[in-house]
């Protein structure tokens, strides 16, 4: 028996996920333009692995396969994995990471809607701990053509150290630490001077800043489509910029500028696509602000003082842990119980 309401808005999980995927396209286009088509290979690999893993788990769990495979949520996870990993990691690493995300982090917890952690970020953290070297080799913009990228992805022995470097975020931190050392050649140089090299662009890393801009554009579109609300991207960017800005204002020679932080690494992807994952994120308006602000501060702390190239993934997982507590304590007063 079907009860009221008898009418429904034409909305579905599939449509939501499809719009998220579409919103990623501008960023991906910039990625291809500056770093080569290798990323497309990674996206395809990850998508195939995600669908295969999801199908297998749905079969084991006795869930309707067509319904859940077509909801596109696995593809979103796959794309976020491909976009946060270095574009030249070997194929088996992408596949393993995606399978871990889908099989362990998502399906073993109960599938769509049940995972307490963001699957893509959990996979990123697992992989960077397991394969720190492979996960830290980033080609500079325009450095590798498509065939050498393919060779790196599918080839056997890698001579990667010679051809790739760290991310601009990583490199700048290393340089800043050197600058603080009186014995170093770089001693006394400011962040702005250190950023004079060919690896850097106007705001962040060369090329990388354009990719970030692409994600920002897509994110704003999601905002306009009301798929996400302003709370998470707003609070994340503000907290990241504020914590970076505070230390930068006090000691500009020791820290990168807030703009650099916003334009580099996974900041934009995190703000609009990763932290906004509704399943693993906070849900109340106030909770979203707290959740994203915490992630912003943690991202900066990990970037500035930690050992990993970027902090978004760890910050996301740490804040995912806090979500039940945040949600429970930020329930808005209901109708008639507000104090205006």
């Amino acid at each position: 028996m079907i009860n009221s309401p008898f009418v429904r808005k034409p909305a579905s999980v599939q449509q939501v996920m499809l719009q998220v995927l579409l919103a990623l396209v501008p960023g991906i286009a910039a990625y291809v333009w500056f770093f080569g088509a290798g990323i497309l290979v990674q996206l395809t690999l990850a998508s195939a692995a995600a669908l295969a893993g999801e199908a297998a788990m749905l079969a084991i769990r006795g869930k309707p396969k067509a319904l859940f495979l077509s909801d596109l949520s696995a593809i979103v996870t796959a794309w976020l994995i491909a976009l946060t990993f270095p574009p030249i990691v070997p194929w088996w690493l992408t596949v393993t990471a995606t399978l871990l995300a889908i099989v362990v982090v998502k399906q073993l917890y109960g599938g769509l809607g049940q995972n307490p952690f963001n699957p893509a970020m959990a996979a990123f953290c697992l992989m960077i701990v397991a394969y720190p070297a492979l996960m830290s080799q980033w080609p500079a913009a325009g450095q590798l053509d498509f065939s050498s990228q393919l060779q790196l992805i599918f080839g056997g022995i890698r001579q990667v150290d010679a051809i790739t470097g760290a991310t601009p975020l990583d490199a700048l931190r290393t340089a800043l630490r050197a600058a603080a050392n009186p014995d170093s050649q770089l001693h006394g140089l400011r962040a702005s001077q250190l950023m004079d090299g060919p690896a850097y662009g106007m705001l962040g890393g060369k090329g990388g800043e354009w990719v970030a801009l692409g994600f920002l554009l897509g994110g704003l579109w999601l905002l306009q489509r009301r798929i996400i609300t302003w709370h998470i991207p707003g609070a994340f960017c503000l907290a990241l910029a504020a914590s970076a800005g505070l230390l930068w204002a006090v000691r500009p020679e020791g820290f990168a500028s807030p703009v650099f932080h916003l334009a580099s690494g996974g900041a934009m992807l995190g703000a609009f696509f990763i932290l906004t994952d509704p399943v693993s994120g906070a849900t109340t308006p106030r909770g979203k602000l707290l959740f994203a602000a915490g992630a912003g501060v943690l991202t900066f702390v990990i970037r500035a003082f930690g050992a990993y190239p970027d902090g978004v993934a760890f910050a996301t997982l740490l804040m995912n842990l806090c979500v039940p507590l945040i949600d429970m304590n930020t329930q808005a007063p209901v109708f008639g119980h507000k104090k205006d």
Partner: protein
Amino acid sequence: MLRKLFKFHGGVKPQTHKAESTTQPIARVPLPERLVIPLHQAVGGHPRPLVAPGDKVFKGQRIGGADGSLSSAVHASTSGIVRDVAPALMPHTSGLTTLSVIIEPDGEDRWGELDKVNYRTTPPDELRDFLRDAGVVGLGGAVFPSYAKLKPGKEGRLKTLVINGAECEPFITCDDLLMRERADDMLKGIVAMRHMLQAEEVLIGIEDNKPEAVAAVQAAIAASGQSGIQAVAIPTRYPAGGAKQLIRVLTGIEVPHGRRSTDFGVQCFNVGTAYSIYEALEFGRPLISRVVTVAGNVDQPRNYEVLIGTPMDHVVRLSGARPDTDRYIMGGPMMGVRLPAFDVPVVKATNCILVGSPALFPPPPPEMPCIRCGECAKACPADLAPFEMYWFSRSKNFGKAQEYHLFDCIECGCCSFVCPSHIPLVDYFRFSKSEIWARERDKSSSDAARDRFEFKNFRQEREKQEKAEKLAAKAAATREKVAADNQAGTASPAAEAPDTAKPAAPSAEDTKRALIAAAMEKARQQKAQVAPKNTEQLSAETQADIDAIEARRAASAATPPTPDA
């Protein structure tokens, strides 16, 4: 004059479908062959039947008398012969029956003698009794007896009387047409209500998708020369016609769940109710008909003036139901109830007969898991977090669901409407509420049983003790007698002994009894405090919901809806 309007949180904008049924004026319906008039049509006590099979009744004759502190009378909608007073199918999803008076019209449609009253000179208490006996109840759908609401709050006067002409549900246009065609008479009803409530101002809220109605009411106000009455166009957003939402929009006041709006100086009535009050006070005509919209899967959607008790298919026939019709819905598509048959009677709560078909209201796509996207929370006009209540309802963690304010849910359907996972959220909340009601009822009946048991124990104890004391006294007396016989003449100590013992024994017993009584009283009060708010004086629909659930529970071993089955 422009008024500052307030916003309520959430709400949705479904397609309104109102234009179709407003092209033609309200039509009359020919007398049906048979009227089935349920006695229990309003919130409150079950009216007792005043007629028996074979009786001749006149139009407007009382056939069900108000019974209890909150109850409303029921009348014959036309003249004829009472064929039966028996249970008949009621217009409710459950398919349950209710005691109804079945009248065969004689075709004369002759009014009986009607009481008349002058509302300006009659004391309010008598007016209220008059309206109770005229069967005037809220026609917006809640069917709450109007007389009970026509009391000003503690201060003896009201700040704002809100008249609800918002009509936010899609398809329904009965209030719209009533305002267009009968604004003058409706306004006279409003003036009478204002007088009874001593209301400072009157605000008539009408959604701005009904410009004709707004204009008609404004013209009526201007023509009447009344001051302090204003027709206000409010933004069209479902559920702006919810009483609490409308009060919020017009006055900024939020009336919390479980509180009376008169505590905040506001009272709210539907426009149709105002018209019925006018009919009752001006002509003494009780509530025997109402305007009903017939819309949906019909050739000519239209509004009809329908006698209470008319079988629905008799009305729908006039609009021409299409062949693929598979159901009637009473009310709108957002909150309406699917009916168990086509020939159930039109009752006072019937604002719309929505004719449905699989094409018009297709079954929802398969239910997906909740992704916590929060769309439901964004749409909820009660500022609830439906997805949280959903988890708790699903896991039957009803305590937690109540912590998240389950009972503040007005079941407007906005959450189900927007859910991208197609989860029937409102169904989960209805399920939880009825489970909680059932448990509270079980608890109160087991409490009563325990009280009886405890009192029985106490009584048996007491009787035992009394018996023992009696025996002891008897034994003592015997002993004394023996002693007295032995020591003849020295009676003084023996006579004193029982005298000292006697007052001591009852006083100890009295204290104990007082203590027990005090403890029982305390326990009773504690229980009264934790008693549920919502188990008494439920509306007929809610009661039917509960009955239906009870029946289902009895039938199966209480399996909850398992959506992923």
